């Protein structure tokens, strides 16, 4: 049995301006001990997906359909109270920008203790000891003293470590990290990513890393899912995505990856235009207005939504270009540029 399985998950928000299809038919599998990277620009639906898995849209205005199976339980149709009892324990989340994600008025220790005691009937004292252990484990020096500090008294990297400690305090089996390193500077990013890799190994959890930056997931992920306009447009093993990407959007993302040997501002393959509005999603292929190769498929992209099809060995692509065209463009036009 697959540990986490999404089947055609749709999360739509009715608004005064129309229906926002934030997530529009997403499916994937994830096993324990494995890491999935979900990559996309802001507004692509990746964060909504993670909140959807945690059941945080329940009770709101969102219209949710499809299935989310976690360890044999279906969560979309489960009661909000049941999903709540799983949150923080079975599945847990690390948020972007821990300064705003942690409550400014409570100490770091208190917030970890709170998270621990929701799911474990222990005394405050025991919980505090656990909190200190957790802080030590995520590499915070002098955790017995820092446990009484407030979030604003921590540095950015320390805060993220504390956030991770909080998320891991109940030994979750599924950990979702939403842009865990975006708010941090580059050296700290690397430390945090190392830490997460180590911890995942220790806890044997399933890990979803959500990011707009392919670089972040490059080393960490087993699989990568690229989202665009609420849909998956390419999915595959990390090696496949990096070595043989087939979607023009993925090529753009690869071209936008900051690399140590290049100026960050220099974009090799800029993706022109802006991410699509989720209310007025372009007809046909959502990416077609920004796609440099759209003319080559005879205008199909303007009217027809391409299907997500397997190109080979679990590598899925949603594109009107034929497999051969895609591979040809990659090999002759894109790859040489990226390697120059």
């Amino acid at each position, binding site marked *: 049995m697959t540990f986490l399985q999404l089947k055609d998950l749709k999360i739509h928000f009715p608004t005064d301006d129309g229906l926002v299809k934030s997530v529009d038919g997403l499916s994937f599998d994830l096993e324990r001990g494995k890491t999935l990277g979900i990559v996309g620009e802001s507004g692509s639906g990746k964060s909504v997906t993670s909140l959807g898995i945690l059941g945080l849209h329940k009770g709101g205005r969102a219209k949710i359909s499809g299935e989310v199976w976690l360890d044999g339980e279906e969560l979309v149709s489960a009661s909000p109270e049941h999903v709540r009892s*799983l949150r923080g*324990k079975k599945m*847990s989340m690390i948020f972007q920008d821990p300064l705003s994600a942690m409550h*400014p008025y409570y100490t770091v220790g208190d917030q970890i203790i709170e998270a621990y005691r929701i799911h474990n009937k222990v005394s405050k004292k025991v919980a505090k000891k656990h909190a200190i252990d957790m802080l030590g484990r995520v590499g915070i020096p002098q955790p017995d003293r820092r446990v009484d500090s407030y979030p604003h008294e921590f540095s950015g990297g320390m805060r993220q470590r504390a956030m991770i400690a909080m998320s891991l305090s109940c030994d979750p089996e599924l950990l979702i990290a939403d842009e865990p390193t975006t708010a941090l500077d580059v050296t700290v990013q690397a430390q945090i990513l190392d830490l997460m890799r180590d911890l995942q190994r220790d806890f044997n959890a399933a890990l979803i890393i959500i990011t707009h930056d392919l670089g972040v997931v490059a080393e960490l992920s087993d699989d990568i899912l690229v989202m665009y306009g609420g849909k998956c447009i390419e999915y595959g093993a990390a090696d496949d995505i990096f070595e043989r990407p087939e979607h023009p959007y993925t090529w753009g993302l690869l071209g936008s990856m900051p690399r140590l040997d290049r100026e960050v501002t220099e974009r090799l393959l800029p993706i022109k235009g802006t991410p699509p509005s989720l209310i007025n999603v372009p007809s046909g292929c959502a990416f077609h207005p920004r796609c440099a190769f759209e003319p080559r498929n005879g205008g199909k992209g303007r009217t027809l939504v391409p299907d997500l099809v397997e190109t080979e060995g679990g590598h899925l692509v949603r594109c009107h270009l034929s497999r051969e065209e895609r591979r040809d463009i990659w090999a002759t036009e894109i790859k040489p540029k990226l390697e120059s």
Partner: protein
Amino acid sequence: MVTYIIRRLIGALAMLFIVSAVTFSIFFVVPRLAGVTADDIANRYVGRAATAETVVAVAEKLGLHDPVVVQYGRWVKGIFVGADYDYGSGVEFCPAPCFGYSFVTKQPVWPDLMDRLPVTLSLAAGASIIWLIVGVSVGVLSALRRGSIFDRGAMIIALAGVSLPPFFTGLVALSILSYGLGITAPGGAYVPLSEDPVQWAYSLILPWLTLAFLNAAAYARLTRAGMLDTMGEDYIRTARAKGLKERVVIGKHGLRAALTPIVTIFGLDVGILIGGAILTENAFSLQGLGKYATTAIAAQDLPKIMGFTMLAAFFIVVANLIVDLLYAVVDPRVRLS
């Protein structure tokens, strides 16, 4: 922390000094620049057919012929060491803090102020508790049920509450509840708490509600806006992601943050209120500091105006200090230094 408080207290004293100097100037320096003489000022405090000699004598007695600086110095001195007061048939010593004697009623100002303070304190205490509880509850419920009939209704009533002055609501409430139905006390029926707590509350319930209505409305709107802001914060999402029950998310994480600015405003409002709920006290004929101030200002009774201004400024300054200290307790990000 201690040095901070000491520093703030010194600042508060300086502030009171400035307030007193400015009030004094408004009364004495500004009119003089406009050509009003000391005798013209004295003319306000004599009967309508007083002779020129009487006016000069009164000006002399009130010390209006002295330079303003000397008059101010005398006033300050009275506060710290007391002053002698000639009441015609003899001289009386007015002990410190002596804020002088009313130019009009000839009553010493300080005992009068102390006599009226309990009325205003009673009014402020009851009203502020009511409006805080009602305002915050309505605000929270409105925020959580945003767009519901309750929310819309509450916000319309709140708009009315903010817009209607207490002299209007007070008058309407009195005519309907006190004179029409006879279920609440008529205006001016204040009984001290120490005499009869039940009568005290009965006599004040309508002023409390009137004043509370005004502020509860403002607080409901503030709380609602603060709550909506807070419930959209990332840390609320974190709290939910931890698996906290919604009740705890709202109560512990949401309210705590949303209430912090409310606490600040509440402290200042109460401070200002103790300085005199002028409109409400007038509407209900309550003999508190606000009513005292209205009378003093109408009669241009300088010692009373000065005394009242000082007391009101004192409460506002103290309220500010308490709010700042409280803020540091409530919000750990604020460090006092």
